[in-house]
């Protein structure tokens, strides 16, 4: 990379700080950096009430009764100084996510085929050959926002969101791809579905995925 990315570190309300790169599209460097910064800040349990890594930004919240806004800001800047010199290596293992692509499981597969001028098999191949980073969890419990998918597969959201998207659905929104952990309304182009339960509040560990994980989609069934 020619020019070094420098994030902005700013207060957010009276109890938050936002570190953001504001890059256009997806930046692996920005995502890796905010996640590494999140890992460091997460160890400072006495200061932070939330540490929320995202695509190119990180939000932390603190208790304004215990921590002054200035010192919270300095703390984040110091942590950034530390990792900006050398990004710690992440040692996440790759989680395999089985997917049934197309058909009833992927009602919008044809939209992607049309815009990309690729066959369904080619779309599946391109979507599943990338190792994705889980960049962000939310907007509902279990929704995994993943890193950039293949350039040919980029596709805007539906103008009017679907009333209900099945849990486990895998979608595309512009350059993003992601997994719906729960049944919910949603505007992403759905190309497949995983039988893996991403979120189950009754399970001992309700979360199959967390931000920072690396995942790979494994096409299931008969590709014929």
């Amino acid at each position: 990379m020619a020019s070094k990315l420098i994030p902005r570190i700013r207060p957010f309300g009276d109890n938050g700080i936002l570190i953001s790169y504001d890059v256009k599209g997806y930046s692996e460097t920005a995502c890796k950096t905010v996640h590494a910064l999140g890992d460091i800040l997460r160890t400072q349990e006495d200061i932070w009430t939330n540490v929320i890594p995202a695509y190119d930004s990180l939000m932390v919240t603190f208790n304004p009764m215990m921590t002054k806004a200035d010192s919270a800001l300095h703390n984040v800047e110091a942590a950034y100084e530390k990792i900006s010199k050398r990004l710690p290596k992440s040692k996440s293992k790759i989680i395999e996510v089985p997917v049934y692509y197309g058909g009833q499981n992927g009602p919008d597969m044809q939209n992607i085929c049309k815009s990309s001028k690729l066959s369904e098999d080619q779309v599946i191949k391109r979507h599943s050959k990338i190792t994705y980073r889980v960049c962000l969890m939310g907007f509902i419990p279990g929704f995994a926002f993943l890193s950039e998918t293949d350039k040919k597969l980029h596709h805007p959201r539906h103008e009017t969101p679907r009333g209900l998207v099945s849990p486990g659905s895998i979608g595309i929104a512009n350059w993003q791809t992601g997994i719906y952990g729960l049944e919910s309304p949603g505007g992403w182009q759905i190309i497949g579905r995983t039988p893996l339960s991403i979120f189950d509040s009754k399970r001992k560990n309700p979360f199959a995925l967390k931000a920072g994980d690396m995942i790979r989609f494994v096409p299931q069934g008969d590709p014929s």
Partner: protein
Amino acid sequence: MSGAVLKILKGGTQTTLQDAGRPGHRHLGIPKSGAADRLSFALSNYLVGNPWDAPALECTLGGLHIRFLKQTRIAISGADMKAQINGMNLGMNRCVPVEPGDILTFSFGRIGCRAYISVEGGLKGESFMGSVSTYIPAGFGGLEGRAYRAGDEIYSAELDSSGANTLPFGYAPRLSRHIVLRARSVTEWDWLSPAAQRYIYTSPFHATSDTDRMGARLRGDKIDLAEKKDMVSSPILPGTLQIPPSGQPILALIDGHCTGGYPRALQVITADLWLLGQIAPSSPVSFRRCSPEDAPVILRGRNAFYEGLMPGFRF
């Protein structure tokens, strides 16, 4: 002491079990939840002698009918919904005894949105990540993660109660129909047009019928963005005001999504977050600029005031 303490005869618009919520899990997509109006919730618990964060009923807009199955004490705080016991008017912010068979009914209030009903000893619900707060979108907490309906029976949490309390003068918040929120400009503030930057702090908005525990859609003067830039999904908090392309802002509330995809213009100060719970459909909502120096001073003052009454309480 077996058996339920009360039975729901009518659930009303939406009645759920709430406590102080499950903070600290936003990175997993789990919102804090808990009582939407934390202050009124805490005061109703104080009145019956419960710890301030004991699980209590949160009744939205009204229409709730309850039959008590045991002798106990209750208190109601928050929005006044003309509560009656066996047809007799029941005052707000008072601890009152109830007998088995007594029927508590709520009509609909004109000011505010949520009433809290605390029962001596607190109420029991399904716990998830350390809280029994009902979070309907993902179906956990409370009873099967849903709003109560006719026939549901609720048990006591059997917490220690210190006995009935009275609220000293000046401690009951005076709710107004017009919700005024002190806020600070945040990260995408610069994206607003100069005109929008002026009237976002001056002209009142109205909450639309699209208002629930997750958020309030506001209608008012169009808040224009100076430039349309794409935004990637980014963290938001309860009290974050986002500006979608329509120019009609969305205010995130206590069950709000942990991430949003629209520019973030304002953040309501911590000391005023409890008021978000009293935004009803059609409530006028205004924002007032709060300086960075004032916000912590206001919070410290408010916390000190109420902590004297309720040890450990924090806005």
